[in-house]
């Protein structure tokens, strides 16, 4: 089985839109499908992927199936973005250190 992760879930604009739609309140699958131009099957597949990535939970109420957002997983993405940012902050740290050394060298050189 393909291992799903949260990055895969949000890599697609339709899936991001679905998450936005259900972020405030659960919606039934038909209501979600109706707001897109693509086929119902395509939306079902997106929902299936979101379920596998644990960003969406389906609750059955009688005949209706409601999609509920599980946004806790999204924290994983923001924590990796923070680490990626840190990677660039480190470059600025290096620049700072290098400038400090250079200033010192030039002072002594004069």
């Amino acid at each position, binding site marked *: 089985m393909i291992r799903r992760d949260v*990055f895969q879930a*949000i*890599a*697609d*604009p339709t899936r*991001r839109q679905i998450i936005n739609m259900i972020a405030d309140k659960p919606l039934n699958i038909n209501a979600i499908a109706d707001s897109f131009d693509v086929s119902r099957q395509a939306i079902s597949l997106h929902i299936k992927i979101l379920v596998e990535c644990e960003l969406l939970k389906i609750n059955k109420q009688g005949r209706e199936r409601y999609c509920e957002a599980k946004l806790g997983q999204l924290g994983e*993405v923001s924590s*990796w*973005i923070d*680490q*990626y*940012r840190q*990677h*660039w*902050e*480190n*470059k*600025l740290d*290096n*620049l*700072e*250190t*290098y*400038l*400090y050394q*250079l*200033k010192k060298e030039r002072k002594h050189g004069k």
Partner: protein
Amino acid sequence: MENNTKDRELLLERILDAPIDLVWEVWTNPEHIAKWWGPNGFTNTITTMDMEPGGEWNLVMHGPDGTDYKNRSVFKEIIPHKKIVFDHFAPNFTTTIEFEAQGEQTNLKWHMLFESKEEFIQVVKTFKADEGLKQNIEKLNQYLIEMIA
């Protein structure tokens, strides 16, 4: 479709304790850049740095394990002591560096804008995979040290 850039950009800002002419010099002279571009444990070779609009910038980062990482960019805009803009390829993002003198200090703004949210997520994901690999290697190292001890 997505005009909002918030979800595909990084903005870093720092006040550097050096006058603007020195900051500009270490940013625009390849010999200097090679010394701070990092990351830690890496060395750098700058093969081309043609600082004019349309000019190429090719930089190879040599990893501690001997792996080479090639970086290709093209400069878009150069305003001395003010601004450097370049497009980086694979992954595709545009970097804008802004310099502003504040007495004997320099305020540096470093803005990276990725082509799309998808590209940004892909880069972060690759970074995550690389970091994960690094952590695994560290774990392996630690394990070997403990075995020998």
